[in-house]
């Protein structure tokens, strides 16, 4: 925090060895150049018209709302899951962990299909939902949220479990010797201590939910206003209107960058 600086100059950072710079530049280029290509390829004179069609506005709004709700569910379900993985001594924990991480390796379409098999009207759970409550999950906004939560939650769990393991149980032990019940220790010590990890996990989850395509189109369908999020609209537009698809992609990129940058900044300045 209050580190001494050399007189008249900025902080001196250790020099990175040169073999770091070349791959770093290549890696950055691999990501940045195609995105820059998107900017070049955009039909700027018609940009506003392209991104303000009813379908585009519907998709943007739906993406933001479902992304936020999915992130909330990731926090609600993923935080306890990460705690169990990092702190409990359940037998078979490695198996549990690899199951939780499955959505990372599973092609999203496969994830969407498995959800469809489970929750479709003929699926084991979907059948009951239909018979008892008249609820049909596929082709609904709820299905979008379920699909996004499915693919995004591992990001939160991985990030948070890492933070929990790094922090260790030391602070919780101290809290217990000060008379804090496990719930109080969780609320007032554990969560605040791992908050940076929690925030970056939530940001990652949100970003993943925002870009979610495969699981959504397979499970929730591609219905404008109900399940057609930005990536799904981009996919459909790329079938016949590439200009529109490129413009919408740019919107997606801008939204993602805005959210990552703002939360990242807060993360760094707010805690520590």
């Amino acid at each position, binding site marked *: *925090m209050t580190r001494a600086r050399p007189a008249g100059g900025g902080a001196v950072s250790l020099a990175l060895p040169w073999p770091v710079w070349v791959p770093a530049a290549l890696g950055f280029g691999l990501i940045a150049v195609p995105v820059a290509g998107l900017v070049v390829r955009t039909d700027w004179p018609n940009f506003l018209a392209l991104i303000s069609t009813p379908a585009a506005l519907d998709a943007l709004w739906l993406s933001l709302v479902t992304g936020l709700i999915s992130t909330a569910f990731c926090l609600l379900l993923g935080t306890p899951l990460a705690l169990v993985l990092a702190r409990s001594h359940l037998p078979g924990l490695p198996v549990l962990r690899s199951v939780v991480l499955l959505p990372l390796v599973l092609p999203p379409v496969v994830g969407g299909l498995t959800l469809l098999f489970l929750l479709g009207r003929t699926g084991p759970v979907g059948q009951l939902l239909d018979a008892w409550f008249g609820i049909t999950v596929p082709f609904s906004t709820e299905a979008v949220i379920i699909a996004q939560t499915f693919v995004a939650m591992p990001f939160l769990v991985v990030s948070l479990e890492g933070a929990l393991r790094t922090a260790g149980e030391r602070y919780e*032990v101290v809290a*217990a010797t*000060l*008379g*804090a019940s496990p719930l109080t*220790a969780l609320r007032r010590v554990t969560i605040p201590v791992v908050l940076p990890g929690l925030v970056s996990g939530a940001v990652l989850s949100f970003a993943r939910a925002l870009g979610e395509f495969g699981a959504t189109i397979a499970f929730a369908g591609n219905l404008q206003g109900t399940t057609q999020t930005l990536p799904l609209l981009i996919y459909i537009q790329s079938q016949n209107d590439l200009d529109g698809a490129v413009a919408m992609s740019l919107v997606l990129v801008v939204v993602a960058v805005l959210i990552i940058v703002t939360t990242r900044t807060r993360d760094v300045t707010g805690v520590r």
Partner: protein
Amino acid sequence: MRPPIRRRPWAADRADRAGGSGEGHPSPGRPTEGDLRSESGGLRARVTTRRGGFTLDVEIEVAPGEVVAVLGPNGSGKSTLLGTLAGLYIPKDARITLGGRTLTDTATGLAVPAHRRRVGLLSQQALLFPHLTARDNVAFGPRCAGRGRRESLEAAGERLAEVGIGELADRRPSALSGGQAQRVAIARALAVEPDLLLLDEPFAALDVDAAPAVRSVLRRLVRDTGQTTLLVTHDVVDAVVLADRLVVLAEGRVVEAGPTAEVLARPRSAFAARIAGLDLVTGTASGDGLTTPEGTTVHGIASEKIAGGEPAVAVFPPSAVAVHRHRPDGSPRNVLPVRLAALEPQGEVVRLRAAASPDGPPWADGLAADVTPAAVAELGVEPGDDLWFAVKATEVAVHPRRR
């Protein structure tokens, strides 16, 4: 400007509760053992456990208001003992009572969770909650006990003043030095007024410069509040400064126990002698260093400010003792006649163990001097010989000690 130490507001109701819960946790089917006959007051712990091919089997008692130091090398079972007392680790076979409450009884399957034990813990690392200010850290425990926010914060401010850093109350831990952080940790541990305070090498991670002052603060608070304390350390000086009694642990067993100065002055086991490793002379503080009970002066340098007449102990390493056949001339301020009791080879050096000489002070009994084998050959000494020990005043540290 140190504010007066507040007496504990909970002392009365603690006594009540202790009696009540003592009756509430009888141990059915278990005959009362002789050494655990009383269920009231202080800590009584009997712990037997295996952990990774190593067995811990100890019995420890700490009377109310007493400070007991457990001394032992790494791997002697100190951390397992602390973890067991704090309720972080459930041993194979143990019975632990504190102030009449049974905390652990493997016979009945009773294990009070850590947060209901009223056992505080202060470790090497301060482990201040990084997201809270110093004041909020100290107020944490009282808030958990259900006390009001304002009351807790005010009390926390006073606690911080007691440990001498009242002006840093609103700093985050990242803006505190190691010594300052450990002071906050002391204030935080004492703020909950635990029935037992566990100290786990509390100064080991501090700078050599910071340690004495922090040790002094802890000593004062523990003494002034009559805090029942169990200290685990491998540093003899910690034990000398803080502890009434000393328990020496080796390979999971108690090998020696007794009043601190006695155990260190006359280690009965080779192990305790090695642990002790230092020469100690008890007395009271004086302007030149230390005055022994029969009136001789040991010249030395006080490690912290000690009022004249306060109980103190002079400490010096055996390697600082020069051995002579005849009374030496020159600068050493402390020169005393001794009678050689034993020669103990200790690796590279030979330890000469002294007994009191008829011509010298009685406290010479048990002092050690480390010399090279070559020097022993040159001096041609053997047990029963009369010798002179000489120690420079700058090698002698005078510490306050428990009365």
